């Protein structure tokens, strides 16, 4: 009898210790780390000006319903688990209990409703809301359960609610009519549920976050995280070399040479769900013949370009769905080798013959088009190369490089013959918004592609309820996409990051998602 009692006591103590440990502070906090951002951030993940420089910070300050897990699948964040109704139109999220906001108040389903009500309000224009267009209502079932009601089934919802979809507190916006001008929250004192909370913000200079010992995912080990405003990428690399920055996101492979040979800096690379492309405007007669599009795919030497100015950090893309999506990726689709003769042959079959100056003509018309691209990243040399490759097969390309702002304007107005761009997509094969005919004028279907079979497949992919069914549908879609070429695929770039070897514990997933696991990073 006494032994039993003793065992119960010991067991209870052990359980209590295990339960209390994270709250007690976890391993001893160590120092701080620094990461560069390119401009002044906004601390509200739904703000219309929430761009790349803000998302690293908001991913640390806030949590979404789900997040991308370390083992490459979607796991619960604020939601422990979820149910989908049989008709696919009702998603029920069962929220974690005992989560507190940074100011000590309790997190409840009301906060989720408050957040998503803002998202779906068309007058507010919250950023990224296009991904949530199928949500028509948010319903609070009880303080720990919330339902999202959809107008059409969307199997990818689990991914969508985990990407840049931080939940913001209802009580912090009490009495506020316009969430976008609520500076106290957006610009000074954001209140989230995340592993770190706001410590200091010096506009134009830096943002410092400090650890949140009460974080539900486990208290962080690193004391502070500083986001330094450094618009120039070379300056960022210099600071990494000097030790003033701990970790850097490298978006131009040319910068990797800066850290070559440094034993104290680790460069890691991993594939991401991102592809670079040329989007021909399918409404222009020039590109409507499939053979023309296929000819282009044969005309450029993608391996050379990749080993050339991408320093090998990419893979030639066979389609819009990348190998990162594992079971959804179809490796058996039509591929295009660098073959100029084949390109010329295809064009000839389509009726294009070389004119007196070498430029292809058909019925008196020259094969000439304008290529729109933004003057960011490495698009300038890329466009120049594309122009050269196409000139070699008799196609005349007029380059139109524009400031990013103006490029977006041209993109929205569909004022282009073809454009160069990239899509970074959540880890889900749902390509609806990017290629369905309904998204041609006002969505992300930039090539203005409209193919009935593709449309049907994309719709079915959203409705499908089992993984096996989706695999089947998307495999067929990839076959079609490789054959019919809505986009002209260039490559799948790898993500490159460099960090000081003192930093460990960074999960091997893409950096934006890795920031959502900041509580597990360690500094030696």
């Amino acid at each position, binding site marked *: 009898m006494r032994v039993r009692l003793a065992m119960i006591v010991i067991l209870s103590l052990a359980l209590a210790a295990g339960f209390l440990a994270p709250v007690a502070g976890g391993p001893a906090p160590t120092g701080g780390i620094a990461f560069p951002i390119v401009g002044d951030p906004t601390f509200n993940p739904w703000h219309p000006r929430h761009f790349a420089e803000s998302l690293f910070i908001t991913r640390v300050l806030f949590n979404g319903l789900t997040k991308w897990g370390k083992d490459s699948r979607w796991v619960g964040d604020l939601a422990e688990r979820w149910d989908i109704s049989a008709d696919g139109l009702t998603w029920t999220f069962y929220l974690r209990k005992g989560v507190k906001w940074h100011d000590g108040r309790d997190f409840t389903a009301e906060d989720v409703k408050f957040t998503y009500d803002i998202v779906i309000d068309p007058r507010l224009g919250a950023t990224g809301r296009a991904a949530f267009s199928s949500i028509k209502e948010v319903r609070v079932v009880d303080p720990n359960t919330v339902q999202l009601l959809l107008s059409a089934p969307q199997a990818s919802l689990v991914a969508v609610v985990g990407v840049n979809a931080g939940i913001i507190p209802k009580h912090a916006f009490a009495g506020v009519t316009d969430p976008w001008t609520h500076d106290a929250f957006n610009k000074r004192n954001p209140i989230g549920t995340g592993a770190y909370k706001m410590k200091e913000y010096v506009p134009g200079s830096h943002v410092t976050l400090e650890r949140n010992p009460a974080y539900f995912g486990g208290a962080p080990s690193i004391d502070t995280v500083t986001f330094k405003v450094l618009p120039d990428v070379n300056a960022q690399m210099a600071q990494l070399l000097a030790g003033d920055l701990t970790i850097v996101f490298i978006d131009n492979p040319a910068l990797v040479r800066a850290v070559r040979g440094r034993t104290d800096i680790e460069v890691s690379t991993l594939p991401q769900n991102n592809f670079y492309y040329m989007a021909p405007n399918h409404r222009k007669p020039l590109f409507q013949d499939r053979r023309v599009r296929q000819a282009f795919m044969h005309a450029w030497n993608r391996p050379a370009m990749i080993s050339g100015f991408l320093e090998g950090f990419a893979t030639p893309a066979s389609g819009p769905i990348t190998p990162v999506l594992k079971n959804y990726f179809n490796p058996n689709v039509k591929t295009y080798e660098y073959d100029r003769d084949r390109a010329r042959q295809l064009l000839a079959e389509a009726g294009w013959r070389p004119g007196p100056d070498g430029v292809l003509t058909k019925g008196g018309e020259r094969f000439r088009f304008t290529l729109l691209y933004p003057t960011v990243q490495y698009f300038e040399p890329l466009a120049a190369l594309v*122009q050269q490759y196409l000139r070699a097969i008799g196609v005349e390309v007029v380059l139109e*490089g524009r400031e990013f702002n103006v490029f977006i304007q041209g993109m929205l107005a569909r004022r282009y013959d073809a454009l160069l761009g990239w899509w970074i997509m959540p880890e889900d094969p749902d390509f609806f918004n990017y290629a369905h005919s309904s998204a041609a004028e006002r969505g992300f279907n930039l090539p203005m592609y409209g193919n009935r079979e593709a449309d049907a497949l994309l719709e079915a992919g959203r409705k499908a309820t089992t993984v096996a069914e989706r695999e089947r549908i998307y495999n067929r879609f990839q076959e079609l996409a490789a054959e019919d070429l809505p986009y002209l695929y260039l490559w799948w770039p790898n993500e490159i990051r460099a960090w000081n070897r003192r930093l460990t514990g960074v999960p091997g997933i893409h950096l934006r998602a890795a920031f959502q696991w900041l509580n597990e990073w360690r500094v030696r």
Partner: protein
Amino acid sequence: MADPDKVPSVARAAPAPLPVAVTSAHRTLWGVAVRRLRRNPPALLGLAYLVVIHLIAVFGPWLMPWDPFAADPLIRLAGSSTGHLLGTDEIGRDVLARLVLGARVSLAVGLVAMVISVSVGVVAGAVSGYFGRKIDTVLMRFTDAMLALPTLFVILAALAVFGGGPTTATVVIGLTAWMPVARVVRGEYLRWRVTEFVEAARAIGGSDPRIMVRHILPQVIPSVIVAATLNVAFAILTESAISYLGLGIRPPLPSWGNMLQNAQIYIWSAPNLALYPGALILMTVLAYNFFGDGLRDALDPRLKL
């Protein structure tokens, strides 16, 4: 004798007006100038460089065996080799060929924009400083306004209205650089018009235009030359800074400025991509400066032969 220390600081004897033509040939203005230049090595070097570089700019691209546009990503960022004397750039194009073709654009933009800015600036400054009063007020307040306008938006507006292209770019750059010239020239004219020698010139019946041009302008030329050479550098460098906006020299056309700009990210792997165009810009600006200095000396009426 008046104590020079008590002479008011601005008193000065009348500088001699420009020499009148005399019988012997080498006593003419130009004859004197040429002789003086010949004895000025830096000026001659500068002149020689300018002549050579302009000849290369005009004829070079036709004579070059290498194509400035042929790209090959597999040989990018290569050092000097027999096929590519100065190596290749970030997508494998020949650097030397691009420098030669780029010379056309950069030299033209530098020269024309400078000429525009100096002409407008000198005229505005001279008229403003000489006549004073209302004309000065209006012109100088206009200059103030132009100085306050945000340059980038001027360029963007020009892009929207006139379209991109090197001509628009050159004109726009010229029109954003005349204000300092005008201010400096006006300052000089304000100071010179109250001197005794101008009063003397008026007394002997000199008209305003004549005084402005034949008497005061030569005194102002040195400052104008300084402003002009500084503007050449400004023009060449500004042209590259605006190409990312879609105005000016659009890729794949090279200019020294845009080669310098594109080389930024390759500072870690190929720093000489920036060195070559940078060195050429520097030498061109120095050449303009030394030649300009020499020219000013050559035309200086006060130096003895």
